[in-house]
Structure formats: C-alpha cells, structure tokens
C-alpha cells in the first residue's frame, strides 16, 4: 500500500459512513460532504492543476442552484435534465468570465473573478429579483424522481449523490492524466515556456475553467435540492472563499486532498458551530496556520508521514 492508496482508503471510509453505521445521524453531514466535494474537485482542476486562483466560483455554484430550482419549479422540467442544465449554465458563465479574467494574469485574475461574481450577486439581489426571489430566495426545491425511489429520504438520496460523486471523481482523475491535464501542469509551472512550446495557453485555461464551472453548477444544483432551498448566500463571495479554504486545507493539486478538506471543513462547521457562534473566526485562524505551516494541506502531511513511517514504499 502506498500513500495515495492510503488517502483513497480514508476518503472511502469517510464517504461510506452511512453504509458502515446505518441509521446514524451522520447521513446529512455525509450528503453535504459529497456535494461540496464535487464542487471542490472541480475547483481544484483550476486551482491545483492549472494554478489559477479564482475567487468567483460562487457565481457558477449559485447560478447552477438557481437554474435547477427555476427549471424544475417554474418550467416543470424533470430533475436530471435540469441538473444537466445547471451544469451547462454554470460552465457557460465560467466561459464568459474567463474571456474577461484571463486577460489579466496571476493575482489580478483572483480580483477580477471576485469582482465579476460580485456583479452576479448584486444582479440576483436587485435586477433579477422577479426571477430569483431576491434576498428571500426560493424554497421548496425538489429532489429527483427516479425508478420510484423516495429520494426525499436522506438515506436514499445518499446513493444518488454517491453515484454522482464517484462519476465526478473519475472524470477529474481522467482529466488529470489526460493530455489536457499534462498541458495545464506545464502552463502552471512555466507559462512562457508552455506558450513557446506551442500550447495555446489561453484556450487551455478557458477550457479547464469552463469544466470547473460545470462542476460548480452541478454541485450548486445538488445543494439546493439537498436543503430544498436556494438563496443569494450561495452566490456570495464567502462561498467562493469556503471552497478555497476547503481545497487548501485538504491539499491542492491532489485528487483526494480536496475531499479531505471538505470533510474537515464540514465536520468543523457541524461541531464548532454548536460550541460557539464565532466558529468562522476560528476557521480563519486554522486557515492562516495551515497556509503557513502546511502548504500542501492535510493530504501532503499524510503523504509525508506515510513516507517516513514506510520508507521504500514511496508513492
């Protein structure tokens, strides 16, 4: 067993808690972890693989949530096509963002994505109030209706989410080892060189940003259906911040790291918010310490420890 497989084992244990301990109270938490993991896996394609720090992913996440809610509730669409549409719209918005944001590089990319997503947030609260319900949001978002299974039961919905989670993980794993993934890693390590070799840097960056937007849109739609509600909070910049924290906490650029980050974030949210109303400040401190102390996140730490304990079995 090498370190990567050990990480995979940890992730497998976390997501199979409802199978190992049926009837527990953890099912809601695990469902949330699955959904946020899809978001984080997609975010890491941009952040960890391509090295672009986006602070605008809340826009794709929230727009996906609104798309699914409006299509199912107002237009009478079925759940699955609406979920697909959430992904398509999320990806399309990401493509639009990327046309503006890739004009500036590095840190200013983060500023621009933040500013653009804030524009979407403002629009949802004011100009599109008729559509989005303004600050009240939309309540009563449905869950899928398939094969006669009652997905309003959290235990059943878990399997639906698990299937999508595994699919998302597989696709992300394939992208990582695909020529696209390799080219993006080349761009991350040296953009000028990659361009000189003949890669169309901007087009590759736009592609991965769009894929990441699809991930965000789908996961946003799923979260709306999990909590039966969509509100402007999902579009808020702090949602973008949350996913950044999750990915960095878990370990950017690794396949399983972001999932670990999501699990820890969600468990902290669950546990700390019961102890104190100031949990977000504590999260900030943890985040600062982790950024200074372990830049490769928990996954990096585990790999390091593993290699020390089991020398020779290098991953």
């Amino acid at each position, binding site marked *: 067993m090498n370190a990567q497989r050990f990480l995979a084992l940890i992730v497998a244990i976390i997501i199979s808690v409802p199978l190992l301990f049926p009837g527990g109270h953890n099912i809601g938490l695990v469902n949330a972890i699955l959904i946020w993991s899809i978001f984080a896996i997609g975010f890491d394609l941009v952040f960890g693989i391509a090295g672009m720090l986006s602070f605008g992913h809340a826009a794709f996440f929230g727009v996906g949530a609104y798309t699914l809610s409006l299509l199912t509730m107002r237009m009478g669409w079925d759940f699955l096509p609406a979920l697909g549409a959430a992904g398509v719209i999320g990806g399309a918005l990401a493509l639009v963002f990327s046309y503006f944001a890739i004009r500036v590089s590095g840190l200013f990319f983060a500023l621009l994505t933040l500013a653009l997503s804030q524009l979407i947030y403002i629009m949802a609260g004011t100009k599109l109030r008729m559509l989005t319900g303004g600050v009240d949001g939309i309540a009563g978002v449905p869950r899928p209706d398939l094969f006669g299974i009652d997905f309003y039961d959290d235990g059943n919905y878990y399997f639906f989410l698990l299937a999508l989670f595994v699919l998302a993980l597989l696709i992300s794993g394939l992208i990582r080892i695909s020529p696209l993934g390799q080219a993006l890693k080349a761009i991350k390590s040296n953009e000028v060189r990659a361009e000189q070799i003949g890669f169309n840097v901007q087009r590759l960056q736009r592609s991965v940003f769009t894929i990441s937007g699809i991930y965000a849109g789908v996961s946003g739609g799923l979260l709306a259906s999990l909590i039966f509600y969509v509100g402007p909070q999902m579009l808020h910049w702090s949602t973008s911040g949350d996913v950044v924290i999750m990915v960095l906490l878990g370990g950017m650029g690794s396949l399983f790291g972001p999932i670990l980050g999501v699990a820890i974030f969600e468990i902290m949210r669950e546990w700390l918010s019961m102890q104190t109303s*100031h949990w977000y400040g504590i999260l*900030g401190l943890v985040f600062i310490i982790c950024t200074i102390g372990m*830049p490769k996140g928990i996954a990096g730490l585990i790999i390091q420890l593993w290699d020390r304990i089991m020398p020779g079995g290098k991953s």
Partner: protein
Amino acid sequence: MSTIVIGLSMGMLLFLLAAGLTLIFGMLRVINFAHGSLYMLGAYLAFQMVSVTGSFWAGLVAAPIIAAIIGALMERIALRPVYDRDHVYQLLLTFGFILVLDEAVRIIWGLEYKQMYPPELFAGAIEMFGSSVPSYRLFIIGFGAAVSAALFFMLDRSRYGMIIRAASGDPEMVRTLGINVSLVRTGVFSFGAGLAALGGAVAGPLFPIELGMGFNIIIDSFIVVIIGGLGNIRGAVMAALLIGMTRALGYSYAPSWVDFLTFILLIGTLILRPEGLFSRKGRTA
C-alpha cells in the same frame, strides 16, 4: 454641484484605500484582501475613540495608528514566513485575515449598526453655486487632497520614498546597499493598513458603521487598482476619482444601475487596455 462634491469625496476615500493597496502591491507583490477589513476596523476604532473621548479628531489620529500596529503584526507574524513561496499563498493569508478581523469586530462591537457624527466644525452645510453642500464632504475632499499630496511628496522627494521605490524595483540590490528590506516591507504594509483605517475613520460619519462596509468598498478599490494600472499610484488617483464620479453621477441619474456602471468601466478597461488606463511603462510606486 452636490453631485460633484459627493463624487470627489467618494473618489478621495477610494484613493486612500487604493493607495495602500498599490503601495503594498508594489513593495510586497501581495494583494491585500484584508484591506477592506482594515478600513472597517478603522471606522469602528474611530467610533470607539469618539465615544470614549468625545473628540472626532482623537479618533482620526488613533484609528490609523492602532491599525498600523495591527498591520505590522500581520506582516511580521504571518506574511514573512511565506515570502519565498508562490504569491498565491500570500493572497490566501490575507483572505484568512478577513475572517479573523471580521470575527474580532463582531466579538468586540456586536452586530448592531454604529453611528458617528461629523465634528462640530464641519457639522453644517455650505451654500455653493446655489446648492447646499454638506461641509463634511468638503472636509473629506480637502483632507484627501492633503493626504495624497503628502504621500506623493514623501514618495518622490524624501529619502524613505526613494528607498521604497528602489526596493519595489529591486529588493536584492537595495539589500546589498545595506538597507534592511524586511523592515521596509513591514513599514509599507503597516503604512498601508494605517491608510485604510484612516479611510475608515473619515468614512465613519458618512455611512452607518457595520460589518459589511469593508467588503462593499474593497470591490470598488480593486476595480480602481485594476483600472489605474497594477501598482501605479498616479493611475490610482485618476481611477479613484473616475469611479467616485461615476458612482455619484449614477446615484443621481440611475440609482439602480450604479454597480453596473463601475463594472462597465472595468470591463471596458480590460478590453481596451488590460494594463490599466493610466499605466506608463516602468513605473511602479
């Protein structure tokens, strides 16, 4: 007339923030996400000083000093260990500061809106060209102009300014010449933090003091910095006034489109001149 006054005062406020952002970026290559939180902290600190001492001026002096100390600590404790890493980590750290500073403010001052009043000297309104203008707005314009003049004088003419400009361009060379560059970095970050808090203290009597105020202004400041040209402080002045005037005109003619107008400026800039409307080659600070 009052539209122009509002626009200029708004521009001056934005400049106080954008100047700090620009200086910090020029020197440290860090975009300080927590700049808005420092602005908010400045407003709360000024509010606290006013309610303790009863004097607006005490707040105006104390808030930037306290924020500058906090800024120096932030740079020393958190940013210094990660300078040799990718710049993304520094930006992420300042994002962590937002969470911590916002929480600290929430713990100390709670969630209610706070209200500050202009000093008695500028409490009234003045008749100008047939319309009545709050004299506090005029004070902000004058104060902002004085601060920016002092800032430019310091950067262009003083020894400290020379060191900052040189260290922004080539820190290694400046270090070789016997100047403690890491101290200069701490100083610049702390100074920027002080400027943000000064902006917050000045803005206190204009807006209700609340937790969201930092984030509202930081987006505009980022837009100013991008439009002005990355790390270009002269560009920042022009861009701040441009955004301030756009906002003021927007409020009086098309209130619900104000936010869109600034974004149209931003996107227009990016399409026409991605390097900034007011950028000149080879000038950083």
